[in-house]
């Protein structure tokens, strides 16, 4: 009799009645995919139109005398200078000096800030105690501290790397803390009802839940690292993109100065792209990316 009841229940209730309501993918036809390819080309054209227009303006404005070509050489002249710097190896020297400093500082900062942030976030009293001072430090512009670092660590590599560490630490630290603290309490409740120990709860629920927030901090840190480093190199250095820019300006090699600026822009874009890619790999489960 119980089996009869079971089969009748199955008959009245289709096994997956609400399937497909929100099922996102449908089999797409060839026409569909061609249309999609066309749309991608159009999207690319729209996305690059503004950049092309900007570069065209840069090229034309000095040539027609809208601006003084001595102070703003046409884009093609800057490209020539860029190619020349690459050919002589000078560009590589400056880029590698900057990237080396930025990477060392960034890596040390991330390596320290993530574990510290996890620990602070997990122990609520500690977080409440430390958060105000961390906010204070974060909102103290790192560059304001450059003279302090130079005083203590000298004008060499140490002070620049220390400045990068300082600037990178706070975004990572604060975002890690908030990531740990804003884990959905229901997930914690559900996991503790399964009898997980605090350590395993942390490892299986808190840590993965905090990853997206930690990544926001990491991307902010990456942007900050380049920013403060270039500024530090402008103040005192023998190599690096910041040095290239100020030195070119002082020696009136204006195209080289712009080449250095373009190099910084490209470097920033590449760095961001790498981090976005990495972030996607780590948080493939999220709906919004």
């Amino acid at each position, binding site marked *: 009799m119980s089996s009869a009841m*079971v089969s009748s*229940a199955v008959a009245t209730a289709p096994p997956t*009645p*609400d399937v497909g309501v929100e099922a996102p993918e449908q089999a797409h036809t060839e026409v569909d995919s061609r249309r999609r390819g066309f749309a991608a080309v159009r999207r690319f054209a729209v996305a690059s139109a503004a950049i092309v227009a900007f570069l065209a303006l840069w090229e034309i404005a000095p040539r027609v005398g809208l601006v003084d070509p001595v102070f703003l050489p046409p884009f093609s002249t800057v490209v020539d200078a860029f190619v020349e710097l690459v050919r002589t190896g000078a560009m590589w020297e400056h880029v590698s000096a900057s990237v080396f400093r930025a990477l060392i500082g960034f890596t040390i900062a991330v390596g320290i800030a993530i574990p510290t942030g996890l620990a602070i976030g997990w122990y609520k009293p500690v977080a409440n105690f430390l958060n105000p001072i961390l906010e204070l430090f974060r909102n103290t512009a790192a560059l304001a501290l450059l003279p302090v670092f130079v005083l203590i660590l000298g004008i060499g590599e140490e002070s620049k790397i220390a400045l990068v560490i300082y600037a990178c630490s706070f975004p990572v630290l604060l975002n890690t803390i908030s990531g740990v603290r804003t884990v959905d309490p229901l997930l914690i409740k559900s996991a503790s009802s399964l009898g997980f120990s605090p350590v395993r709860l942390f490892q299986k629920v808190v840590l993965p*839940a905090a990853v997206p927030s930690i990544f926001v901090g990491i991307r902010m840190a990456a942007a900050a690292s380049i920013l403060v480093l270039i500024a530090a190199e402008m103040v005192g250095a023998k190599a690096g993109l910041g040095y290239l820019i100020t030195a070119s300006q002082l020696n009136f090699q204006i195209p080289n100065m712009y080449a250095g600026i373009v190099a910084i822009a490209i470097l920033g874009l590449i760095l961001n792209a790498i981090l976005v890619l990495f972030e996607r790999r780590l948080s493939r*489960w999220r709906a919004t990316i």
Partner: protein
Amino acid sequence: MSEQPKLQIDHVAKRFARRGSRDLFTAIEDVTIDVAPGEFLVLVGPSGCGKSTLLDLLGGLDRPSAGRILLDGKEITGPGLDRGIVFQQYALLPWRTARHNIEFGLEAKGLPRAERRRRAEDYLELVGLAGFGDRYPHELSGGMKQRVAIARSLAFDPEVLLMDEPFAALDAQTRESLQDELLRIWRETRKTILFITHGIDEAVYLGQRVAVLTSRPGRVKTTLDISIDRSGEDVRSSEQFRHYRHEIWTLLHGEVERARAIERETANV
């Protein structure tokens, strides 16, 4: 009832310290319910009847101020895999696929990987989600998410399944189909189920027995045995169904009024 109850809630009370007040707030008072092995018991009550408090006590996440809760004659002292909880908001881990969410409880149990995988597959099939194992929660509809949550709670084979308004966040059609699914799963697995709801229809449709709770503090007002023939079509319109529905409605109506009066009173103070 000659055999030992599966779950005994024995004169349980829970009081909390209230902020800015020296007297304690009594969430539930003197609640006594026995649930027989394999029984489907529904607790229905107005808002403020201490449903969530009772669930926390049953889950072992909190201790009662008075009384005891016994599972198979042994007192509950903490969380454990002998109870599976299904929450209204699913509580699925968004970074895990449906399959890995089901495996979550099995990891707590310490099962080897291959065994976890096999069981997850079985329970995906039980809840009608075979083939959806690799979907992430955001790729599933509300009803499918709740099926995953039910599968997760059943997979580690608890003694009782505790369900906290599990279908309250779903649309009416999905809710009805999941109610049928739940009854089928209950018959197939013969689990003891304690189901908490504020919906009278849901209580009558699902419960073998319905316990009506009072509001503030939560007490058991009455328990009703429900015997309706659920095999026919549109059971919810049958004479029997309407009879039970009205009876519970009458019992609850007074409580809802009383809850409102208390709310007004506390607001005026």
